[in-house]
């Protein structure tokens, strides 16, 4: 499977209701410099926050700011795309108010 079906949902609307303390400039997830397409596509499909995207021009993008800290990308592509994954610094990251 080398493609991703149509996406109609705008995840920014949903992540926008969450409470975050974003540690600007200190990403807690690091990606390989040039991750292969197939491995990256896995992350597009499994990340529940839609942080892994392929834009209209075909570029692979990633933004750690809306991270839900589930660790799914570490499981799906640890050691290939995701080369470093640790928890955000003290008091940073998502703060669930319901959970």
């Amino acid at each position, binding site marked *: 499977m080398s493609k991703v*079906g149509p996406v109609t949902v705008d995840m920014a609307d949903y992540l926008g209701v969450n409470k975050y303390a974003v540690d600007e400039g200190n990403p807690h997830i690091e990606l390989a410099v040039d991750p292969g397409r197939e491995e990256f596509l896995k992350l597009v499909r499994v990340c*529940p926050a839609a942080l892994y995207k392929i834009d209209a021009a075909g570029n692979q993008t990633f933004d750690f700011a809306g991270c839900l800290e589930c660790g799914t990308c570490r499981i799906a592509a640890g050691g290939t795309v995701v080369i470093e994954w640790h928890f955000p610094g003290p008091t940073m990251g998502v703060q669930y108010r319901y959970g």
Partner: protein
Amino acid sequence: MSDFDVIVVGSGMAGPVAAYEVAKAGRSVLVVERGESCGAKNVSGGRLYTHSLRAVFPDFATDAPLERRIVRERISLLAPDAGVTLDYADERLRDVGCASYSVLRARFDPWLAARAEAAGAEYINGIAVEALLRDGPRVTGVRAGDDEITADVVILSDGVNSLLADQAVGAIRPKPATVAVGIKQVIELPAPVITDRVLVASDTEGAAWLFVGDPTKGHVGGGFVYTNRDSISLGLVVTVADLARSETPIYQMLEDFKRHPVVAPLIAGGKVVEHAGHLVPEGGFDAMPPLAGDGVVLAGDVAMMCVNIGYTVRGMDFAIAAGMHAGRAVVAALAAGDTSAAGLAGYRQALESSFVLRDLRTLRRFPDFMEHTTRLFEKYPALARDAMRELFVVDGTPIKPVRKSLLPLVKQVGVLKLGKDLWRGVRAL
């Protein structure tokens, strides 16, 4: 001389219960929790079966922040345009011994932590343990930020996404086939509206509802709905390995699920107030890491103590029981002066004779059954729909005898295949 007798990493379900047992025995115990408040990093579907909580806190129902008592169980097979639902109501579900409640972790976990604190446990919140301290093979404490804190025993209850299990017992990160990703939204609705929509008698009662088929586009997993007091928890759980091959990303699956004709009326007019993601350990008994090492034991999701058999999904009641047994076994090991892996072996023995390892062992074939019985997710929901159409749709054309209307449907899948799946499923349970 260690700083504490025991350090507990993580304040979810297992951690505070373990800390409570240790503190109650008069031992010093520190809990390190990365959430600024307890529960701030935790997510559940979620429904809590309370039997194991009752064993530790018989009075829990007086002040625990529970949402609704679950008195109705539903399971739906969903095709894209239809749903076939089994609806189970039973007065037995109200019995004290088998009561279950919907919970929201940001509300429940602080209550559980407060019980541990009241017994004498100390807490540090808002900082993650980055590494375990070691002396040779022995775990001797934790490093969090600039602090190094030592203990005779570390109880690791830091959840499914543990970065420390490897250091503790050499358990490398779980394989994509043994964990599922959960995606969940909390959708706010007035309490009486929820009560009416799921057909329960009052705002303190609620329903649990599981869905298979279309919610995951035929991939291994399912959808869920749990009614909270004035919100609905709705989401999906999909095995990571299978999801990685899906054409539809999980967040789009969730959006489509919410628009399904069976689901949409339930949440109509509701407002999404939170969007969450979390891993679910689903590998079962055969994916469990060692439960103890020198100076360390593992309890809860970090040790894959979870079972998902399609109609019941359990993890929190396992974690609470494991926390209780871990705390008690650690207290016994401290008293005996032997906190090596051998000295802590009483923990596993206690779990072996409790429901925790018994159930995980009984159901050890089920994860493999789920993974390899793809017809359950791809074919059977549509088969159920087509069968119901033969029975219920009346449009004036002369009816066919059941043997002529239903048997061909079964033959589409194959009588032998259906029989085989049924037989394998029964054997796995």
